[in-house]
Each structure stands twice: as structure tokens, then as C-alpha cells.
């Protein structure tokens, strides 16, 4: 990425931090910083994406404002992360979507999709929309399965492709020449650090995003969101297997696998994003990068709405509200899919990549370090 005001500020901060090093034990950012003496923009975007924004280094810093050095790593890195998503986006012209309105655009697209679908249905088969269904395949009376699968499948595949292209740009910019696939132990380490959110805890006590008091709640809500999301994804996947492999047609019973995954995951996806929203709103104003709020809150809202409409659909699927709920749910999911490569969702992918890079670098460093 190019030099910006933010990368210049990040470089200034890293020069101070590298001469201090008191935060070495807090997370991965500072050990990664210490093996560098110069900070190119690619290094800085790597360090920024290693940062989990736990806030510990801000409250612990003897140089934090009002000190004249004005060191504020979480805030600067939050801004730099967003700029890095933008800089590495594929296709490049969609990068500006990250500037807070990306999610709005996706939500609107989803809404547009709902409207078109609704109008089309109303014009063709209005009765189907408002009538109670109790039989298998009821969803497909609203939208034929093949249409649904093709439409969502292709958008989803595009989103994955776009994300891979973006993170590939990021990977190269960090100066790493090797592919992570060649280093399974580092990959395993990074998966462990991702699934446990190892660095979202200020070195042990939790996040201090509001006051200097560390709290475990941000990690808990993030776990609820992340695992809730994975369970919902598992619900969709098992549903697809049921459909294509066993020829079982949705909706499925309350105690079927897709439903159990969807229900448990859905609850996680309600509680998690709501909790994260609450924590973000209480964030220390000095530390918060407010220009990221659109991106951050928009993504939380999308996740919450996806879960809410999904759960409502499950509960009310045998009532006349099913048709309306289904197209709203589909619209929200479409918005979510569209937002994947151009919204906050990518933070997880970039951070995972940064953690792999960190694990690779650590292993190399230890291998080459002289014996003490």
C-alpha cells in the first residue's frame, strides 16, 4: 500500500515502541515489531492486522496522550487496518466501499433484492406469498431451489474469490515470499491463535477498551459471534448435503442437524453481535477510531439481522408470515454475502493471514537465533 498520513503516524509510533518495549508480553504485535528496525508500509499493515484492538497497550502506555509523544497504537492501527483492506481490495475500484458506507451499499443491495423478489412474486403468484405452508419444500414455493442455489452460490463463490485475491495482495505486500501451505506447523499455530482469540486478552486479563480495567466480555461476545457464525454456516452446509446427497427437502425438523446448528448458532449470532455493539459503544473515546464505526457497526447489524430473520423464519415457518420472512431473510443474507469482501468480515481473514505470517516468522527467528 502507499504511504498515507496513517502509515506515517504508525511508523512514528513503532519507532517509539521499539525503543521502549514495555508491552512486549501483551500480544504478537510488539515481538513482531522488535525483529524489525525499519517499517515499510507493508510491515505496518501486517502489524496493524496483528493487532486485536484489546486496548491494553493504550492504557499501559506511559506515552499515551496527554504525553507529548501521544502514543495511541490501537486507534492508529484500527485506521490503518481499514486503509489496508481498502488498498488490497479486489477489484481495486471497490476499495472505497470500506470507507464506512460499504455495508450500507450491501444492505441496500439486499433490500433491492427483497423488493424485486417480492414484486415478482406478487405479480406472478401473490397467493403463494401469504399462505401458510406445512409441507416439505414450502420454501421453494416462494423461490425455486435451483434459482436460490444458483443465485446465492454464485454470489458466495464470488465473495470468496474476491477475498482470496485481496488477502493475496496483502500477503505479498508484507514481504512474505513463502506460501503458508508449505509450513503446516505455523498454520496450525495460527489456527489455534485464531480459534482461541489468544491475543484478544491484553496478555491475560482481557480487553480494556472502556477503562483500564480488563474485562473478558469482549472475547466472550466475539466467541459467540464467531462460533455462532460457524454453526450457521454448518447448518447451511448440512442442509445442502441433505438436499443433494439424501434428497431430503427443507424445511427440516426442529431436531434435525441443520436446525440444531442453525438454532444454537443463531442464538450466538444474536448475543455476540449485540454484546459487541454494546462494548463498541462504550469504548474509550480517545482510543476508538470513529471513522471505522460505519464498517464495524454495519457488519454487526448484518450478522444480527441474518440471525434474527433466520430464527423467526424457523419459528414462524408454518404461518402465513413465512413467505414475507423468507424473502427478507434471503435479502439480508444476500446483503451479508455481498458485504463479505467489502466490509468488516475481511478483518478475520486478514488477521488470520497476519497470524500465519507471525507464526512463520517466529519459527524462522527461533531457528536462526544464536544460542544464548
Amino acid at each position, binding site marked *: 500500500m502507499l504511504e498515507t498520513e496513517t502509515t506515517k503516524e504508525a511508523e512514528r509510533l513503532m519507532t517509539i515502541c521499539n525503543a521502549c*518495549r514495555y508491552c512486549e508480553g501483551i500480544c504478537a504485535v510488539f515481538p513482531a515489531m522488535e525483529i524489525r528496525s525499519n517499517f515499510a508500509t507493508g510491515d505496518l499493515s501486517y502489524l496493524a492486522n496483528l493487532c486485536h484492538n484489546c486496548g491494553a497497550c493504550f492504557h499501559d502506555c*506511559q506515552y499515551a496522550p496527554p504525553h507529548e509523544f501521544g502514543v495511541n497504537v490501537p486507534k492508529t492501527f484500527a485506521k490503518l487496518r481499514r486503509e489496508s483492506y481498502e488498498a488490497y481490495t479486489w477489484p481495486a475500484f471497490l476499495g472505497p466501499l470500506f470507507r464506512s458506507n460499504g455495508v450500507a451499499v450491501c444492505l441496500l443491495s439486499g433490500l433491492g433484492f427483497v423488493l424485486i423478489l417480492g414484486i415478482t412474486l406478487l405479480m406472478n403468484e401473490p397467493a403463494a406469498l401469504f399462505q401458510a405452508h406445512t409441507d416439505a419444500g414450502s420454501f421453494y414455493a416462494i423461490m425455486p431451489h435451483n434459482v436460490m442455489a444458483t443465485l446465492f452460490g454464485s454470489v458466495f463463490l464470488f465473495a470468496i474469490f474476491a477475498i482470496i485475491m485481496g488477502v493475496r495482495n496483502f500477503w505479498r505486500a508484507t514481504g512474505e515470499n513463502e506460501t503458508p501451505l508449505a509450513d503446516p506447523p505455523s498454520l496450525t499455530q495460527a489456527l489455534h491463535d485464531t480459534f482461541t482469540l489468544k491475543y484478544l486478552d491484553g496478555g491475560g*486479563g482481557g480487553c480494556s477498551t472502556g477503562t483500564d480495567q480488563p474485562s473478558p466480555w469482549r472475547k466472550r461476545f466475539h466467541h459467540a459471534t464467531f462460533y455462532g457464525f460457524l454453526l450457521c454456516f454448518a447448518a447451511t452446509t448440512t442442509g445442502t448435503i441433505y438436499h443433494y446427497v439424501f434428497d431430503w427437502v427443507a424445511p427440516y425438523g426442529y431436531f434435525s442437524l441443520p436446525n440444531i446448528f442453525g438454532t444454537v448458532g443463531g442464538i450466538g449470532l444474536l448475543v455476540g453481535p449485540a454484546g459487541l455493539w454494546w462494548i463498541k459503544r462504550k469504548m474509550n473515546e480517545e482510543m476508538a477510531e470513529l471513522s471505522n464505526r460505519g464498517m464495524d457497526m454495519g457488519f454487526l447489524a448484518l450478522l444480527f439481522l441474518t440471525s434474527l430473520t433466520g430464527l423467526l423464519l424457523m419459528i414462524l415457518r408454518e404461518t402465513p408470515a413465512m413467505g414475507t420472512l423468507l424473502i427478507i431473510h434471503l435479502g439480508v443474507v444476500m446483503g451479508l454475502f455481498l458485504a463479505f469482501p467489502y466490509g468488516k468480515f475481511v478483518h478475520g481473514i486478514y488477521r488470520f493471514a497476519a497470524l500465519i505470517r507471525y507464526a512463520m516468522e517466529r519459527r524462522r527467528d527461533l531457528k536462526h537465533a544464536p544460542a544464548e
Partner: protein
Amino acid sequence: MTAKKNGKVQQGHYDVVILGGGNAALCAAITAARLGSSVIILEAAPKDWRGGNSRHTRNLRLAHDESNEVLTAPYTVEEFYSDLMRVTDGETDEDLARFTLEQSSELWDWLLEQGVRFQPSLGGTLQLSHTNAFFLGGGKALMNAMYRTAEAMGVEVRYDTEVVDLGFDDGHFTQATVRLADGSQEIIAGQSLVAAAGGFEANIEWLREYWGDAADNFIVRGTPYNRGGVLRLMLDNGMMAVGDPKQCHAVALDARAPKFDGGIVTRLDCVSLGIVVNADGDRFYDEGEDFWPKRYAIWGRLIAHQPDQIAHVIIDEKAQGLFMPSVFKPVTSDTIAGIATQLDLDPAKLEDTVATYNAAVVPGTFDTQRLDDCRTEQLDPPKTHWARRIDTPPFYGYSLRPGITFTYLGVRVNRNAQVLMADGRPTSNVFAAGEIMAGNVLGKGYLAGIGMTIGAVFGRIAGREAARRARN
């Protein structure tokens, strides 16, 4: 509890009144509060700057019989004691020193109980890995944890509250007069007093008494609030002084460091890799006398005695990567004359100094891990280790100033942290902890992390004794 008295507002009465808001003060406050005392902390600094010099620290040294998750090997009281004797040249109260080191073995568990967290020694500080416990996130994180604990226990904390007078009745504390941020004054009475308000290193006028005009060019590494007001009041009220008033701990700092609160990042670790000249372009001391961690503390005083209290370290490309990264960028040039111009030195003179030095360097095997055989011959002053020719451009230059960390003058205490009167009688209810009494143990020199050890040990004792005194 508010009443008018002598035109000042009388504002409350506490079992234990604590002056200062750093490590020693908080150790005392928490200990006294745990014993059931009502406690107030009077901190001169605003909240953002609370914690005195403790906010800039990074570790404390403690005796321990076993290694643990952070400390890599045992460090016995005996080993600790011999380290202390070595740096102080015996300028210590041996009984009090041994007692302090014995007590230090309780600090690990106790600090953990107060919510303090530790990390292994930082990169570049391996020499401290078995002696010093590093605070996770540094001294400000330590102070945040202790303030949270103290406040949760009901300790009242007043910021922006400077002590301007202390009421003593023949060594018996009665009340403190404080000035608030808005300039108004208040009287705070208490059963006992803990003075933990630091030294006077930020009081340039006081330093001028010993250093003259040179004091104007000192940089204060820590808090600007250590102006010695409380120390002065105690000495003026007949309490016994300890420590050499002329002594201070001063290191060589980057001359561009902020006047106050620059902390750790303003240090410069490349002296032993190059040569150091004064404003006249002359070398004045053996740069390679010993490992830098053992010598950095003498360079502040050395520079304080040079013209205009300034010196310049010159290194070449070969030294790059061999010292801790510095926060300020050096001046750079492909010629020595170019460096001289940027550092305001006479180019011909500096070229001559470097040429003379280069000519005196004898071949050797360069090794920063030991006292190597790279030295000069027939040069005055010599450079006895790590001497290599300064001949590989680009050349780099940093200007250095004396950076004062703390002063040694304090009040005399006994094992109960009880302050003694000038005639040797103990006061009845006045206790001291931290830098204000560190001179009892550390009369000279320095041992990394021992300031925090003394503060924590005597802070706990002062809190305990003050609470006991308040109950009676």
C-alpha cells in the same frame, strides 16, 4: 465533616494520610486499607500523570528461592546483598539493607494478589532475567492495577492535590495543608502519616544549590511533580536526613528528550560502540570501560561536568544494529566534518580527534558479549574495550545531555519505616516509603529495579505501621 479553620476548609479526618501516588504510596494505602483503616491518598499530579516515577519503571528486583514462570533462576538474599554492596561501596545501612532484601521475597505473591501481572524480561535485558520481575505493560500498568485495587477497597484518591504544609507537634503528625487545582487550600487531618512523595530531582532550583547553572541543562527523565516539597517540610521540621544531597542518579540521554517524563525511550545505548566528545571536540572518558548497563549511570555525571553539559557520540556504519533502537534519528553524513557541522562542532577539530583515536586503535577480536581486546594504545583517555576505527561511512552522531532519574537525599527511617528525628528519637506517627527514604538502603550507585523494591517493601511496612498507630 467540613468546617472552617484559619480561612482554610477543614476537609475530613482519616486514619492514614498518604502523601504521594506512586508504587510506595499505593503499597502503603492498600496495606492500611486491608487492616481496616480509612485511607486518603494525596497525589500532586493530575490523574493522567499519577504514579510519579513508578509509571516509567519496568521491573522490580526481588529475592526468590525458586525460579517461576517469569524469573529464570533463584536469586538468594545473599546474592542480592552482595550485588547491593558492590554498587553502593558500602554506603548503606547494612541492617536495613539486609532486612529490605529479606522482605523483598514476599513481593511476588503480594503484588500478584493486588492484580499486578508480570512478564519475562524484555528483549535486550537478558542480564536481568533471573533477578528482576518485569511488569506486564510496564510501570503504568502496575500503577493502574494498584489504583484499581485501592479504590475497590475504599481508599480515597485526590489528584491535583499538592501538600504545601504539614502540621507536626514535636514529630507528631496532626494535619496536612493541601493546595487544590483551583488554588484553594484545604486541611486534611489524620492519625498517622505516610510520606511517599519522592525526591526532588524535578526541582531545578534545588538542584542549582549543588550544581549551579549546570542544573538548567539537566533533563528530568521522570515526573515533573517530584519537587521535594514534602521532603523539605520534613527536614525543616527537624527530621533526620539521610543520603548525600549532592548525589543524584543521572544517565546520558538523547539531548532532544523532553524536559520531563521522557522515560525509557530517551536513553541511548551506543556510547561503548563509538567515541564521545564534548563541545570542544575532545574525548573525555573511556567509552569502553565496562558493559554499558554497568556504566550508563556514570555518564550523566560525566556530561554534567563538561562545558554546557553537552556531549556527542560518534559511531560509524559498523555499529548499526548493535544497540537498542533509539527514538530520535541521528545526524548522518559521509564525512566526519559533515557530522561536526550538524552537531555544531569545529570540523577540523573533530576530524583530528577521530584521526588520533583511529591511529591509536590496535587490532583485536570485536565481541560485544565480553570485555574484548579491542582497545587503544597511547591515547588519553584510552578506550579499553570495543575500540574499532571510526572509518566506515555513513557516520552517525547523537547529542547527549545528563538525564536525572532520582536524588539520594531523604529522611532516616528504622525497620518500622518510622521516620527518626534529628536527635535519633523515632517520631510517633510519621512513616516514610519509597524514594523519599531510599537513601537509607541505597546511599550511592544503582541496581536495576531496586528503587521499586525499596518502595514496595517499605510501602507495605509503612501502611501496616500507620494503620496500627491509627488504631491505638
